[in-house]
């Protein structure tokens, strides 16, 4: 049964690319029984801290007028939440609203879990950059979610130590490699950064910057291009640095990584706009000593970045009040009061363009108090985010990445072979799930 159902979905998704509106049937067939009025209560699964306070604003303000009450049920983030949503969906019991990372949307859509809310979100589209909005439409005429936060990637470095060792901030990846080598010469026990094989999202973002499009549809079929020239370039670059010992090969987000950042053993970090929050706990002693710069480029003429993280608010097909839920999702992510509260209570970096340089983002984050124009710069960088292309089994690709690249990084062996393995496993899994995959 899932076989035919999924095939149907791929077909209809593809049909949408061609400009028809076949999928609209999928979204509304489950019925939007709210038709008239009457109080509506919605449940919302989210992992964002402080979301209950933001939702209170809705329940006391616009929600009260419309008699739409939203209840937050706080969840843990990550792939496990997708499994939980899909399990609940199987029983017809998914909540009305869910928070979902962009790369999870195709998985949810191909399982028919997300409703098409294109008719109920008004002109929300105008609040977001094209590349961001495109992630919630999956390139179709449907709209499966409203963007909430984004994670444009940036380069973070220890300003004081760069000065001490006479390093300049790299603007291209070649310079980045040179910088790593220079540092090794000046201070052999230090590393510029590490290649973390446990952070698939980071690698995906770097590949995205290089122009990779891992999943695309053509005709009736999916095409998987994980092992494409752009990604191979990225893999070869980092594999080379690890092999020659110019950078470390230990994973991030471990106690020893925290220690390395806190003591200045690692002096830079390729990360995203949310880095200040992580650094605050990982390296509390180096507050005010860091600075942010755009990600190095593959050629001096380019100006692009990838994204690492970011999530959206989606309405499920199980919801009996899809229109009300969509209304809330649009308010949450485009209303200036809501966005201000999200920034203040939850510390998110908003996807909505005008919120990126107003309210809480007029001042730099406390950790970067030395860089007054932090958020102005961040908004400029966000503007340059390359389009992303997610598929229905990102989790499988990510798992293989961790295994294959983990082993390769540890043994300092060939990253190319690891990349081929990632491609092969992803394709095999898609075929097993019943998707048609082009060669």
């Amino acid at each position: 049964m899932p076989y035919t159902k999924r095939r149907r979905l791929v077909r209809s998704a593809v049909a949408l690319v061609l400009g028809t509106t076949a999928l609209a049937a999928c979204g509304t067939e489950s019925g939007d029984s709210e038709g008239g009025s009457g109080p509506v209560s919605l449940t919302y699964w989210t992992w964002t801290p402080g979301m209950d306070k933001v939702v209170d604003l809705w329940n006391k303000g616009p929600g009260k007028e419309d008699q739409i009450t939203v209840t937050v049920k706080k969840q843990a983030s990550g792939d496990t939440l997708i499994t939980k949503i899909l399990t609940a969906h199987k029983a017809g019991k998914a909540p009305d609203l869910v928070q979902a990372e962009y790369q999870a949307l195709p998985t949810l859509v191909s399982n028919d879990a997300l409703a098409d809310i294109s008719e109920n979100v008004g002109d929300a589209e105008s609040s977001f950059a094209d590349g961001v909005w495109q992630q919630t439409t999956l390139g179709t005429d449907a709209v499966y979610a409203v963007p909430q936060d984004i994670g444009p990637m940036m380069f973070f470095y220890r300003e004081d130590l760069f000065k001490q060792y006479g390093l300049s901030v790299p603007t291209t990846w070649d310079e980045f490699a040179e910088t790593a080598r220079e540092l090794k010469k000046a201070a052999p026990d230090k590393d510029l950064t590490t290649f973390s094989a446990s952070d698939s999202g980071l690698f995906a973002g770097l590949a995205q910057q290089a122009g990779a499009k891992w999943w695309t549809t053509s005709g009736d079929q999916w095409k998987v291009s994980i092992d494409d020239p752009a990604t191979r370039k990225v893999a070869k670059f980092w594999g080379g640095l690890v092999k020659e010992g110019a950078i470390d090969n230990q994973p991030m987000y471990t106690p020893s990584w925290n220690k390395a950042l806190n003591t200045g053993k690692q002096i830079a970090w390729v990360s995203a706009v949310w880095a200040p929050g992580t650094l605050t706990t990982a390296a509390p002693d180096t507050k005010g000593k860091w600075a942010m710069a755009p990600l190095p480029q593959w050629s001096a003429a380019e100006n692009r970045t990838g994204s690492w993280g970011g999530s959206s608010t989606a309405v499920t097909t199980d919801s009996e009040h899809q229109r009300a839920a969509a209304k809330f999702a649009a308010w949450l992510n485009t209303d200036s009061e809501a966005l201000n509260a999200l920034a203040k209570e939850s510390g998110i970096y908003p996807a909505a363009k005008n919120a990126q340089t107003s309210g809480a983002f007029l001042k730099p984050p406390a950790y970067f108090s030395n860089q007054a124009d932090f958020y102005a710069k961040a908004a400029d960088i966000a503007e340059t985010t390359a389009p992303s292309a997610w598929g229905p089994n990102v989790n499988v690709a990510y798992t293989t990445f961790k295994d294959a690249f983990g082993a390769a990084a540890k043994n300092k062996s060939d990253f190319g072979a690891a990349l081929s393995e990632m491609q092969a496993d992803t394709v095999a899994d898609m075929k097993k799930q019943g998707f048609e995959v082009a060669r």
Partner: protein
Amino acid sequence: MSSLAVPQTDPVAGSTPGAARGRPPLRRRTALIPTVTLLLGALYCLLPVAWVVIAATKSGRELFSTFTFLPGTGFAGNVRDLSAYRDGVYWQWMGNSALHAGLGALLSACVSALSGYALATYRFRGRETIFSVLLAGVLMPPVILAVPQYLLLAEADLTDSLLSVLLPQILSPYGVYLARVYAAAAVPADVVEAGRMDGASEWRIFTRIALPMMIPGMVTVFLFQFVAIWNNFLLPYIMLSDDERFPITLGLFTLLEQGANSPALYTLVITGAFLAVLPLVALFLVIQRFWSLDLLSGAVKS
């Protein structure tokens, strides 16, 4: 591993191993290799515990910067922060865990005692079949049942409730198995027969005669099930969506996985994990005295 140790008499079922009053020992070659192996094993098990205890005393600033086994100064602050997190939801999780584990283990022990006793005492058709199915159930990890159980309970509209977590954990194949083995060893057929001769009803025989004899075994079942429910993650994870109903395992998980743009609350999680172990330790210490009953119980001499 213990083969080098002094040979023991056959332990009576249910007796504490090692406490067997044996023949006079063949005098004391201290077995070096087993002792060292066991000591290493103990060290291996206790080191992470020591880490948790010490890390719980460190403030966020000290956690990753000071020497691993050097106690910090932040314990009171950590507990305060933990209690303040979302208006003390941590203690609610602790209460939920206690409720799930306490009630679940008690009911499970009752069900196990009843069915174990029935399987051990009565002869009826299908008894061996039931027992074989039970054995198969012991081999089946409960984890793989969580999703089917969710789908079933969703049919009955019971998900996201206390019942949804309790029901699947009340019937523990292992508990029933243990109760049957224990009842077979601790409740002699003669005693049951004597009760019947005196005209006691079957229920009375069970509650007044058999159950007291089975208590040490049931305490074991209770304890096993308590620990299993306390540590269970997947079942409540699938069943519950309201974080005020979460047990401690789920709650701590939500503290760790807060999304990329908010840092994991390591100090809170570590302190929370440390505090969550304390009730288990206390339970073991308190319940130990029931185990010592073990040696005294038994109504007939063999």
